[in-house]
């Protein structure tokens, strides 16, 4: 084997090693975004679990507001179904759209419940209600932060996969740019509902 071939082989080996390193890095970053997305799901589930408790406590005081309470329960059911659908078919824009819409309806229903409960002092004074609404409030924050963290991860992945020369590996091995969660760009959505007791 002459020198030229050895040089070619060495260059080739370096290229392969470099490719492996870039691939591993992109893979790691993409896995982190998947994990960040799963975190949002965990927090959403926490919210769905809290709502029935909240409603059952509120029910004791809000005799004449059964419609509002039913609306919350209904919205919670729809949002939960939409979240399940998204889990089974991730990456479909229309499923994600439906999910965002269902979350919006749920937020609105909870908000109405909070407005209604304004005029029920006993409800506001109920320790369990206060504790539950703190949990709900915290969950809203966690959802927001989990989205923020997801978007930060997506930004890091997209930056890494679009930089030259990594973009060559990304294009060859199939690392498409990931979309951000647009809903968090919207101030209304980011504020979510504010539950304060």
């Amino acid at each position, binding site marked *: 084997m002459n020198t030229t071939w050895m040089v070619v082989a060495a260059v080739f080996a370096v290229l392969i090693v470099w490719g492996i390193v870039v691939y591993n890095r992109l893979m790691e970053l993409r896995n982190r975004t998947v994990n960040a997305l799963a975190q949002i799901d965990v*927090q959403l589930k926490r919210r769905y679990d809290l709502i029935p408790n909240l409603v059952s406590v509120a029910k004791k005081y809000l005799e004449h507001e059964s419609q509002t309470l039913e609306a919350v329960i209904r919205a919670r059911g729809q949002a939960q179904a939409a979240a399940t659908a998204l889990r089974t078919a991730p990456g479909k824009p229309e499923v994600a759209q439906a999910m965002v819409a269902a979350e919006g309806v749920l937020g609105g229903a909870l*908000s109405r419940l909070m*407005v209604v409960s304004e005029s029920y002092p006993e409800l506001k004074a109920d320790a369990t209600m206060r504790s539950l609404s703190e949990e709900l409030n915290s969950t809203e924050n966690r959802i927001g*932060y989990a989205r923020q*963290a997801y978007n930060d991860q997506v930004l890091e992945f997209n930056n890494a996969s679009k930089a030259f020369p990594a973009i060559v590996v990304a294009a060859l091995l199939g690392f498409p740019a990931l979309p951000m969660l647009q809903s968090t760009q919207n101030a*209304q959505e980011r504020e979510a509902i504010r539950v*304060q007791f």
Partner: protein
Amino acid sequence: MKFWDFQADARRSTKGLLGAFLLLVLGIVVSVHLALALVFWIPALLMVATTPLTLGQAAVTYPTGFLATNVGLVTLMVLGGAWIKRDNLKQGGLHLARQLGAREVRPALSHAEQQYANIVQELCIAAGAQLPQAMVLPRDMSLNAFAASWEARDAVIVVSMGALEYLSRDELKGVVAHELSHLREGDTRLNMELAGYVFGLEMLFNYGEEWSERGMPVFGWPLMAVGWLGWLAGQALKAAVSRQREYLADAHAVQWTRNPDGLGRALRKALWLQDHAHEAAAMQSSPGLRGGSGLRSPLVAHMLLVDVEDSDALHDAWHLGGVNWLASHPSLEERIARIYGQEQDALPLQEGEQRWVNPFAAALPQARPEA
């Protein structure tokens, strides 16, 4: 607040200061050697002055291994000092917090503690940080907090009861985010190591003092002089690093909470407490509840949200050109001005201001701005 810029700025300054610290230690090694060499030169120079001998003839002879001994001695003291100091924190943040009287948070105990425990979890999501142990200083009604860790797994965040009592949810969030930054950036460890090196320089001074007391001031004084100057410069550099870490933590708090007003208002309340010590003491009616004592420990002084160090003569003496060179924290006014981009007034605390009173408080109309 341009928090990305401030973070980059604080990181760059820390690196520069750490470089300066390294140079300082090298400088001390060289100075000790030169100072002790001078001790050997003085008799020779005297001989040249009083006798017809030339400098070449009055040749100075050093003891064997003179250079190696000097360099070895100083290095040993500086590294040894760091090693001794390390022991303090090696047992972990949890141990330290317990020593200062903190206990684990109990979410079932009160609404405030429930909120605090929740806030720590929320911010760990925002910061992508590991969950530290949340703790409370139950008998401390001052407005303060600290974080400590030697390794990630023993990290703790501790807040005073006063912080739980007087801060709103958003304000407490800013405070916890600030402490979380100290944990994530490994500031406790950095500071302990620097403190160790400074302690080593102090040992050099003490060693010199011992020599002069034993009747060998010619060796003692140069060591004392170099040791003292080194100690002072080390203190100033350590304090400067600590101040940069405070700015970094403030910038992180704004980044993670995306709300400068949270930490900003907490610091403005702390400023009010600082300016109105008497009124504050009257509010915190039970004398047993007055705070700060446990927090005066030098082990956590640099990690506190708000500095509680006594402004003793030493610190006052080094207040030059608008900068307190030995202070571990920038002034509250300066931090507040950085957070808001302009100066802000102190926020008075109100008697019985409890964060869980004020239910609903017009939050709903604000919270849903019509798009």
